[in-house]
């Protein structure tokens, strides 16, 4: 017996303009995207209030995973700054709301841009570092921020600030973040194939050659980090208005770690994979809450399982199944 694998020719036939040659080719392209878009938009209707809250959290993690995968898979910058993005976005939105009484409609956009500027500025000096060194530095900043807030007792200190404005109702909460998540996903997928994305992928493959081509790699790395920070800081600003509370747990390590797990699960460099990974992992970790500390063990087992048996991630696996047919045949 041996496994026979046949390419359905989907990818070849749906590349570029050829996708428009027939309805079935268009269907091939639209089907997986449609399942994701419609699925996410319809899902909240079938959930109770608790489930809706979990979905909101899952979407925030999905945004972070998207940013992580964009930086790691397309720019070659391993950035564990997820909690930095959430923290700076969340604190800016929360402080603007509590001090000036500005509504969420104003604070969320301001905190998204302001938080992204802030986190990019403090990460710029480290952008010369590569690989694991940048990862470590970006992981230290959130810890740094936590201890500054505790030591100086600013921004509400350890207790944080509560009674912020919350979003009007759960439908607004959901239908704010889901479209943003989808837009961010498809915008990034588009970006990585545009000129800027090609330069970023060039930097990942070989930064020296990009320099020799007359392109300032620090500038492009900065732009890339800013893009990821925008996505993450939106998540943070949204989070503080979702719970009507801000505190040092916005800088929690979960926001840096879960995106890595989601990316490992969904597949590095696929963008959609990490989003799906986060949408699966977050409810799972909620469901295992009853196990207390033990859920971390289960969580690790899932991660190890994926890394050992499906290192390319489940999205690449599904994609292969979609594009190729496999069957066993007698030799």
């Amino acid at each position: 017996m041996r496994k026979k694998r046949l390419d359905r020719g989907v990818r070849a036939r749906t590349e570029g303009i050829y996708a428009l040659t027939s309805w079935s080719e268009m269907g091939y392209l639209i089907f997986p995207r449609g399942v994701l878009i419609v699925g996410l938009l319809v899902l909240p209707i079938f959930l109770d209030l608790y489930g809706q809250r979990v979905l909101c959290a899952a979407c925030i993690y999905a945004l972070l995973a998207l940013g992580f995968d964009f930086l790691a898979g397309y720019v070659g910058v391993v950035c564990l700054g997820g909690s930095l993005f959430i923290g700076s976005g969340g604190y800016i939105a929360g402080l603007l709301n509590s001090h000036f009484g500005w509504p969420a409609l104003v604070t969320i956009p301001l905190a998204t841009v302001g938080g992204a500027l802030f986190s990019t500025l403090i990460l710029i000096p480290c952008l010369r570092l590569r690989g694991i060194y940048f990862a470590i530095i970006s992981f230290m900043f959130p810890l740094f921020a936590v201890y500054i807030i505790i030591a100086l007792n600013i921004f509400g200190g350890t207790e944080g600030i509560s009674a912020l404005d919350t979003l009007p109702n759960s439908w607004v909460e959901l239908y704010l973040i889901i479209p943003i998540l989808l837009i961010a996903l498809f915008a990034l997928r588009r970006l990585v194939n545009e000129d800027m994305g090609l330069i970023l992928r060039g930097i990942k493959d070989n930064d020296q050659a990009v320099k020799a081509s007359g392109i300032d790699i620090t500038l492009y790395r900065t732009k890339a980090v800013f893009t990821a920070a925008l996505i993450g800081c939106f998540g943070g600003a949204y989070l503080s208005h979702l719970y009507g509370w801000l505190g040092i747990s916005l800088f929690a390590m979960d926001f840096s770690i879960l995106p890595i797990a989601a990316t490992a699960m969904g597949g590095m460099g696929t963008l959609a994979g990490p989003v799906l990974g986060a949408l699966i992992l977050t409810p799972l970790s909620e469901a295992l809450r009853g196990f207390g500390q033990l859920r971390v063990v289960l969580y690790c087992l899932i991660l190890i399982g994926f890394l050992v048996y499906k290192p390319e991630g489940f999205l690449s696996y599904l994609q292969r199944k979609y594009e190729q047919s496999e069957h066993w045949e007698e030799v």
Partner: protein
Amino acid sequence: MGEAFLLKVEKLSKAFGGVHAVVNVSFQLAPGKVLGIIGPNGSGKTTLVNVITGFIHPQSGRIYFKDKDITGLQPHKIANLGLTRTFQVMRPYHSLSAFKNIIVPLNSPRVKKTRAGRLGDKDAVAIDILEDIGFERDTRVPFKTAGSLPLGYLKRLELARCIALKPEVIICDEVFSGLSMSEITSLIPLLERLQMDGIALIMIEHRLRELFRLANRVMVMNFGQKIAEGPPGVVMSDPAVKEAYMGKEKSP
């Protein structure tokens, strides 16, 4: 000093710890000429290129390009002035297809400025450049990922990436090494055409016969020092060069 020299290097030195990779090297390159740099392995040729193009900072000495002091400038700024290089160990963007490799230099400030943003379809421009350099247009080759291309095409890709910048000088770091004789003979007309287009070349080579066909002047390096410079025929009869390549003649 006038416009006589495009590139002028003065007393350049660079040492890595105790290793003196480049010692007091000076030379000049006139517009549209071909300068060959030869020398045994480890004689500092590639380090010299790295210093000139800004990848390594020199310890002393100055580099002038078109009367402008470019010593210590960042590599991308030097490339934008029109001084480009290929890499000896080829550095393609292996996950991108061959023609997308050319899109990267087409986005540099230099190209945007010189062509005033009227580039039109960048993909088409990239494929045109690749065709010029010997990628067959009506095949799949320009669309293959660079990681899967054979050596000969990768060498051409390195050159294409320089040409996309519309440079005034290209420094070719061993473009012939590792290529078969037929691949080399097909590359030579290409380099001659670049020269006819007014691009000055600095060629670092070990293939002397092919180099001497192209080069107007040849400079010989050994242990980081320039030991000879002159027209190809004259240089090879220099006793110091003979010694570097063949060893000392035994005195009878």
